């Protein structure tokens, strides 16, 4: 008995691995115990289930995405600091190769799939229905499913560190290194299965938001009157729809290789590992546009609002979004110029890659000229936006340099590349997500985040960013490869790496200021009583903060692009207030525990696949099937909110 436990502990809980794992084990147990204790003590279990776990309300789902994204940012950030600590000095042995490999893999995977993706979905959910004058998304139930698939996918990925071992072949996970012949551990299976699960959810989100944006706009809101953030979400969702299947196929095929002995990507029996690389980047490149397009949407809203001016060149903005959507899908080969596919292939993809710079440049200029002849308020969202323009100009510049295929032969897999993509991902995406978070925070929670602490966070993070990543460009020119857990002193890479590490810690400090800011503001933050704390332009600012669960008591009729601002200009804001006689009962979707259960079933099945415990896998899949069938037979999933109740509530908010 004891022996069996010990063996289980050694194989799955990795007790032999030492203090890092033990500490994580203890930390996780303490966290779980703490959460359970708090929930029980405050008698919050029922509240948690009724209000959150079963919710189909897009605003709450958005908030849950946001919380997950911030937590994952922290996890990914801790990974980053661990890596940077190891790299601070030549010949350092703070981490060994095995752990370093696991950490950069989880860092990259988590940051992109479990930080950036939920962050954009948080903003999708929070802003889109409000901006377009809808009561919820097109498919609220599917929305909940998407969230829980993401959640359990992320959970599965995160437990790998303490249960069986993390993946360690990079976020790109190229075979044959990841084939069974070279990598026996369950870590790689964790990577494949958890990304598959959350990938299915992501496709759901893509479908949902395309349908929402195309079909649920308030009457009068033609496509050309739609706010640019919603356009950006549409663009991003189209990219999701076109490329996520490629990721899922790539992952599934590799999983089939590993679990069922097939030969897609092995080097025996005719497998071709390059095809994985190809499929991965068919998704992987557009993926960066999936996230950055949403950030572009945020910037468009923020720039117009805080310059007190209409967005410049709205039509160009729409055209450039769509151009990036389409052309961005045609550039994936630039990630493997050095594979030697030949000059024809490289030339084509080099030029198509550079071509993406054209519409992006147009956006840059339009943002600039939105500010021109405006009145610029340097609030937090605007500060992050300005910092973005600076940072992303350089990210794009280095991107275009990478796109010159023969030059890329020199940059590829070097720290020059690492610097490029952090500049794009942080300067483009993270800055945008933070800008969006600050911008819509009052709408979500009814109070503003503290400006003073926010400025500290802003300056520290920005300063840290350049200190961390500018030296990495130089390191690239000095020939330093990415994914090296240590390096010798002779090449002179030490000093710049040290500087870079210092920068990373400054960024960490900046992040801590954000945490402090949130905690401080919960107590002392400025309350938003008008619902329009920024002097906004679009429909969401016509609503009270936080927004009632049915969003609009009466769906507005839209006549202008910046509807709310227009009405304010003309002194007609009263028109967006509901009139008692217009209030009708509202159909709202019912809460359901099934999406959560479905997530649990996927999780169970996923664990079964990771360890090839087939019984568990089959049980989980049966559960999935049962949930789907039950859904099919559900006929009434809506309820009416009586008009009286809405009137009472609106009166309470002082809107009647």
């Amino acid at each position: 008995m004891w022996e069996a436990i010990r063996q289980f502990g050694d194989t799955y809980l990795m007790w032999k691995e030492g203090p890092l794992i033990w500490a994580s084990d203890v930390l996780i147990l303490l966290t779980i115990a703490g959460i359970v204790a708090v929930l029980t003590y405050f008698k919050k279990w029922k509240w948690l289930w009724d209000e959150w776990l079963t919710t189909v309300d897009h605003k709450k789902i958005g908030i849950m995405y946001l919380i997950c994204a911030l937590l994952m940012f922290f996890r990914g950030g801790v990974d980053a600091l661990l890596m940077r600590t190891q790299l601070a000095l030549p010949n350092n042995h703070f981490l060994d190769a095995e752990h370093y490999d696991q950490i950069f893999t989880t860092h990259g995977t988590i940051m992109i799939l479990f930080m950036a993706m939920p962050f954009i979905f948080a903003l999708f959910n929070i802003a889109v229905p409000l901006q377009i004058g809808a009561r919820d998304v097109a498919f609220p139930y599917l929305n909940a499913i998407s969230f829980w698939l993401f959640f359990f996918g992320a959970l599965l990925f995160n437990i790998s560190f303490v249960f069986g071992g993390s993946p360690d072949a990079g976020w790109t996970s190229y075979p044959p290194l990841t084939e069974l012949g070279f990598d026996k551990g369950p870590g790689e299976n964790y990577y494949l299965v958890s990304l598959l699960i959350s990938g299915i959810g992501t496709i759901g989100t893509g479908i949902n938001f395309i349908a929402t944006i195309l079909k649920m706009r308030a009457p009068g809101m033609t496509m050309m009157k739609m706010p640019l953030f919603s356009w950006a979400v549409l663009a991003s969702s189209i990219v999701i729809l076109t490329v996520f299947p490629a990721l899922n196929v790539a992952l599934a095929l590799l999983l089939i290789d590993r679990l069922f002995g097939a030969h897609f990507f092995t080097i025996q029996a005719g497998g071709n590992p390059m095809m994985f690389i190809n499929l991965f980047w068919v998704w992987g490149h557009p993926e960066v546009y999936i996230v950055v397009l949403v950030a572009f949407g945020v910037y468009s809203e923020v720039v117009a609002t805080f310059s007190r001016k209409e967005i410049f060149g709205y039509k160009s903005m729409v055209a450039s979004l769509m151009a990036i959507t389409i052309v961005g899908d045609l550039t994936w080969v630039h990630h493997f110029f050095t594979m030697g596919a030949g000059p024809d292939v490289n030339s084509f993809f080099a030029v198509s890659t550079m071509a993406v710079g054209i519409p992006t440049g147009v956006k840059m200029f339009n943002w600039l000229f939105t500010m021109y002849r405006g009145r610029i308020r340097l609030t937090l969202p605007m500060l992050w936006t300005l910092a973005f323009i600076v940072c992303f100009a350089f990210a794009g510049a280095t991107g275009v340099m990478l796109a010159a295929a023969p030059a890329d032969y020199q940059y590829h897999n070097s720290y020059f590349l690492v610097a490029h993509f952090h500049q794009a991902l942080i300067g483009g995406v993270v800055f945008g997500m933070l800008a969006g978070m600050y911008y819509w925070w009052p709408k979500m929670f009814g109070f503003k985040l503290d400006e003073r602490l926010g400025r500290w966070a802003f300056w520290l993070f920005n300063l840290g960013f350049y200190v961390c990543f500018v030296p990495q460009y130089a390191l690239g020119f000095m020939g330093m490869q990415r994914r090296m857990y240590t390096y010798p002193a002779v090449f002179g890479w030490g000093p710049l790496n040290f500087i870079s590490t210092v920068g990373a810690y400054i960024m960490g400090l900046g992040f801590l200021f954000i945490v402090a800011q949130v905690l401080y503001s919960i107590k002392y933050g400025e309350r938003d009583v008008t619902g329009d704390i920024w002097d906004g332009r679009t429909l969401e600012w016509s609503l009270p903060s936080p927004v009632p669960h049915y969003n609009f008591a009466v769906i507005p009729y839209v006549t202008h692009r910046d509807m709310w601002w227009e009405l304010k200009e003309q002194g007609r804001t009263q028109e967006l207030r509901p009139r008692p006689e217009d209030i009708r009962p509202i159909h709202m979707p019912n809460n359901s525990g099934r999406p959560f259960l479905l997530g649990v079933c996927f999780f169970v099945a996923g664990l079964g696949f990771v360890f090839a415990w087939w019984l568990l896998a089959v049980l989980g899949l049966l559960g999935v099937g049962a949930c789907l069938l039950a859904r099919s037979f559900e006929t009434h999933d809506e309820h009416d909110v009586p008009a009286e109740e809405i009137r009472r509530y609106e009166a309470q908010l002082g809107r009647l």
Partner: protein
Amino acid sequence: MGQREMRRRVTRVGVIAVAAALLLSGCSPQYMVLNPVGPVGKKELDLILLSTVLIMMVILPVLALLFYIVWRYRDKPGNKAPYQPRWSENKVLEVIWWGIPIVVVAILGTATVKTTYALVKPPETNVKPLTVEVVSLDWKWLFLYPDQGVATVNYCEIPTGVPVQFELTSDAPMNSFWVPQLGGQEYTMPGMAMRLWLQADKPGTYYGHGANFTGEGFAHDEFRVVAVDETKFNDWVTHVKQTAPALTKAGYAQLKRPSIMGTASYKSFPPGLFNDTVWADGGQYMPGMLNDVPGGAPKHGMQDTSSMSSRMAQEAHMSS
């Protein structure tokens, strides 16, 4: 904090960043990519410089404009700058900024395409090239000299002024062959024989490293390229032939096991080792390979399944 102060800080950070980038990427020989010693690296450097200049010509004005606009139109009581909240369209301006990037991309694109085609040809045509076959292993580099008959591990002697045709493959997970001072990298892939032209114009010892992640030993996957003049190169070959041991099939199998090692030299190697390796890892399916072999039949091995299972066994062994 006052807005003016903040603005100053923005400027300062920006200036420092740019200055640091420019200063750091100086001429110190540590910057291998910026100090190429052969025509391939030089061509690539030319393209790097061209792209940098072109893109900076757009980016820097954009940033200057940004700082100017933010300063001029800040929301400050008494700011006299015009405020036109509805000014949101201007055909001429928009044509200009659709136009600028198009022109830049056209120029850079042309240069890129030209260089791309140039690099698949030998850098010099009137000198007879040297062929070196490269096999990346876990975690070491094996160099085979088919014409000289010698082989080395983790270092590669080449004559200066002679174009070298590296033929690349891998008998381990995919790697990438990179000698920054000679020129850009190319993947070494199992089952494929890729070609990379490089040439050293100055004698010297140049750093090389696997550039694509291959697992635990990746950080130590280093090698050297030693360029010497032609007579010294010939002397070196003779020297190796006289003093070094032979690489046998068994020796190769030993070499293939995952390990980290120093340099080694061999006076000979099993004939066709490179081709055998490529074929054994799936080379028979690669389109380019079929041209070589009439009827598409493989030259060596890998037809019967028994050798396949032996490979699987080997791989299983390697990972353990």
